[in-house]
């Protein structure tokens, strides 16, 4: 019973993470009734900070690279997934067909802590409001703290059995629309999502690991994405990275692995202007291991040639859907740090 429900929720909530199990073709009938990403739609704020219940899958995904008062590197992840079981928005309360899943993690050079939560929409246990911005599940939350109620100033908290954090983030730059005005293509058949980011957070607060508290500060990156379309059947998983370069630029680069890898990304200048990257603009070369915790990343048009390596190669998220997510250090044409996510690798 338990295993059944976990598998079920996993399949539901972490749609893109189990792409191999749910092909695009197979979804043709399922998707009926859900809204589809729309190229000319564009982005509207503050409404788009909130949930899009007519889309099947959506997430609020924050990763932070931190430096402790002890001089060590840390990473923090706060993620909330929404999954709609049905497109009908008429049902309220317990009957609302929205299911939420959240992952929180804190990573140090020699430790990786994570926790997972599940909740129902409609009753207030988990949800997101756009204005003032608030995202929460149980006692985990990411809420606006500024007078304007926007995500420019956030408080982020979560805790698990042996870790917890309480962080404050302030945006030092504008929101960034990925792809074509926020319409981001994910595969050769044109599967797409709406996708924007806030990569300019300065973040600081307290991290508690196995009972020990440490003051931390650093940079954070928020990703917002929603869609109804999963990946192609042949696509096995993806590699995604969000990098803060020391020269002030930000780089998001990702590839969906499959018969034909499909790469995309955004190169963001320090002022927030974006250069969308397509398949041929990016080179991603894994170094070793499965999943490979070190990569060479080249963006020739941006004169970027760097190597990224995990702060802690053992950053596997042994959650109901297993994947790898952890902070990385950057060396090469520019120094820096960032976050790496890898899904769909065989379990070790």
């Amino acid at each position, binding site marked *: *019973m338990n295993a059944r*429900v976990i598998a*079920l929720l996993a399949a539901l909530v972490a749609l893109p993470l189990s792409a191999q199990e749910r092909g695009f073709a197979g979804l043709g009938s399922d998707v009926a009734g859900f809204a589809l990403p729309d190229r000319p739609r564009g982005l509207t704020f503050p409404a788009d900070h909130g949930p899009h219940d007519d889309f099947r899958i959506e997430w609020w995904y924050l990763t932070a690279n931190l430096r402790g008062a002890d001089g060590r590197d840390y990473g923090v992840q706060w993620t909330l997934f929404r999954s709609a079981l049905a497109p009908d928005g008429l*049902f309220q309360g317990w009957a609302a067909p929205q299911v939420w899943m959240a992952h929180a993690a804190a990573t140090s050079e020699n430790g990786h802590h994570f926790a*997972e939560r599940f909740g*129902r929409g409609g009753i207030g*246990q988990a949800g997101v409001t756009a204005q003032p911005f608030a995202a929460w599940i149980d*006692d985990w939350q990411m809420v606006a703290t500024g007078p304007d109620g926007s995500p420019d100033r956030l408080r982020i908290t979560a805790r698990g059995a042996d870790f*917890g954090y309480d962080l404050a983030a302030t945006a030092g730059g504008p929101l960034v629309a990925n792809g074509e005005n926020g319409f981001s293509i994910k595969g050769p058949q044109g599967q797409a999502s709406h996708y924007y980011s806030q990569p300019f957070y300065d973040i600081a607060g307290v991290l508690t690991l196995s009972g020990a508290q440490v003051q931390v500060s650093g940079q954070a990156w928020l990703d917002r994405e929603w869609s109804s379309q999963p990946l192609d059947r042949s696509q096995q998983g993806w590699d995604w990275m969000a990098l803060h370069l020391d020269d002030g630029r930000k780089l998001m680069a990702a590839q969906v692995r499959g018969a034909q890898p499909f790469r995309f990304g955004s190169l963001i200048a320090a002022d927030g202007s974006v250069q969308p990257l397509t398949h041929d603009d990016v080179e991603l070369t894994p170094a070793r291991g499965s999943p490979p915790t070190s990569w060479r990343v080249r963006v020739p048009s941006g004169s970027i040639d760097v190597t990224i390596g995990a702060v802690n190669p053992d950053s596997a998220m042994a959650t109901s859907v297993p994947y790898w997510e952890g902070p990385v250090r950057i060396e090469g044409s520019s120094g820096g740090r960032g976050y790496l996510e890898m899904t769909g690798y065989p379990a070790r």
Partner: protein
Amino acid sequence: MNARLQRWRLVLGALMSHWRRRPLQLAMLLAGLMLATTLWSGVQAVNAEARASYAIAADRLGTGALPRIEPAGGARLTTADFVALRRAGWMVSPLVEGRLRAGAARVSVLGIDPVTRIGLAPGGPAGPGTEGDLGAFITPPGLGYAAPDTAATLAGADLGGLRIVIDEDAPANTLIVDVGIAQALLGMGDRLTALAASAGQPDGVPPLERVVPGLIRTDPQGGAADPAALTDSFHLNLTAFALLSFIVGLFITQSAVGLAFEQRRGVLRTLRALGATRGEALGLMAAELAVAALVAGAAGIVLGWAMAAALMPGVAATLSGLYGADVAGSLQFRPGWVLSGIGMALAGTALAGARGLAQTARMPLLAAGMAAPWAQATRRGLRLQAAGAVALVLALPLCLAWGGLVGGFAALACGLLAAALLLPVVLDAVLRLASRGARGVLTGWFVADTRQQLGGLSLALMALMLALAANIGVGTMVGSFRGTFTGWLDQRLSAELYVTARSEDEGRRIREWLGPRSDAILPIWNAEATLEGQPGRIYGVADDPTYRENWPLLAGAPGLWDSLAAGRAVLVNEQLSRRASLRIGDRIDLPGGAMPIAGVYSDYGNPSPQVMMGLDEFSRRFPDAPRLYQAVRVAPDRAGSLAAELADAFDLPAGAIVDQAQARRVSLQIFDRTFAVTAALNVLTLAVAGVALLTGLLTLASIRLPQLAPVWAAGIPRARLARLDLLRTLLLAAATGAYAVPVGLGLAWMLLAVVNVEAFGWRLPMQVSVPLLARLALAALLTALAAGALPALRLARITPGRLLRVFADER
């Protein structure tokens, strides 16, 4: 390489062709191993299934092993409270429970939230299993999971379009739906019945009453009574039995293997002389045994599976009755179990074959061709056995001193083994005495011949003795237990009806309703408490003649009921008194202050400690304890109709009202089923011992022709020889049976006075049953008759030529 393989094939062929000429011996070898593996793996399958069930059962119905959070009397618990607790960090999942009238049917409705449920603990109530199901489960009209019977009851009922899905695992008469659907079906609005809580909550969550006031947290029934811990004694019991049977089975194997090695000495020597190396000979014989072990082990596993499947329902009933553990009545296939069965078969064969292999390894190429007297009791062997027995007897008090259940079983093992080892020594001594008194040539020969055969039969006789002793011991223990238990039930179940309310409010209304309709209402309220370091319960009972006249006291101070009613003293159950060495007059620490003990009562219903105190004192000390349970006195002939009226008036679920007769019947049923399993094992053990005896006799028959031939030649007809042989077998069995009686009674005493005290905390008086002994004596003789018939028949029909050949053979 090829040449070597060919050589191995040849040597193995020559060795194994032995079995072709002695198929019966092969059958014995395989049968012994198979029986041993069957009993062992059968019991292991039962144990594994039960243990696996505990893990699942731990959270069944959301009321199993998970703590519950419920509103205090009169308070409401709502969805918003649930959300508030979750948002404060509490790991809880909502429950909606109620009764639903659907047409003529009444079912229990259980509303769950599968999404938060899985975060609490493994296992849980049945629910949606696919993505589409989850959507359909939570959105109206919803999905309902129900067992086939329940689904049939609900067919045609108006449930607002709810689709019923059959789920074999669903609890009886229960409809499982989503929380929201349950609220709608039961018309509960946003109310919840309770919350299931994770056993451990995250660090730093605020206290319950700060988040939602007026909630009571209760740990699962029986406090920390983890079924796995409680039932350990039961499983240890079964395992001990299985091991005993395994050993008896090994006796068969050992004698078959020993004989096979013996009879193939010549062939082995020839093979070596013709150029097979010692390593090859040893390796191939070991390989041959391993193949036999695999074949017999596989067969044993299949049979063990069948045996376990047959026993499982009884075991399940036992465990649920005796310990409240919820165990599936069916078996699941577990690869680890197969491996352990094969492993036991291989280990057993290695044990049984070790001696033969060691002898083969040491065997000089040119040793005289005489057969080693393996089948003859040597004086040295008997002395060694006696020494071993003495050593075991000396170890016995050490085991007892070591203490605990394992110590108790170890002591049992020492005692039984010592008794088994001594058996041939005693029989030899008896025969020596008999030979002095023997008159007549034939009698003299008979006694001498019997003595000579003792060595070859001693293993089989030991097996028979162990089987008989186990039967006597366990039979006596069960008989004593049943006698005591029946008497105790009569005393303990003295009220006519026992009623459990679902809420304090309902309890109060039930008591009001019952007031004019019954002779007396005896509230029995209880609270959990740690008693002398163990989780237990404290009961508050009314002062009533029901108790004064019937309560099963083992010991009591004068005027104890008055001091109980006045709140000056308490009663403790036997388990508590034994474990904590508490006697009358001692003081026991209790919540709210220590109290003196005025009496000790027997309590065979559960293994946990209990304390009884007066109701007033109880209410003073535990004002918050739920007041749900009461006994009702009423004229016995009115009990049935009153129960029906009460159930109807309050729409009480089945199980909320228990009448005396029903409780008594169920308790005895549970009791009998419990020991049906041991009885089945007893019979099997005896059967295995019979096979062991048969093997031993057949073995002897094949090697003792040289001893019989001269007697035959001297003028005793074959038929008479055969009768004498059968008589000998019966006499040996009778002697073994007589020997087994004191051993078995000793075993029973150990079980009653040591093992039961360790396992349950109670000690029962031993009641020796003569019919039981007579029945087992008969069983011993019948076993011997069955085992001795075939060899005797063979001897009666042996051709004179074969007897003559004895004289023709030079050796």
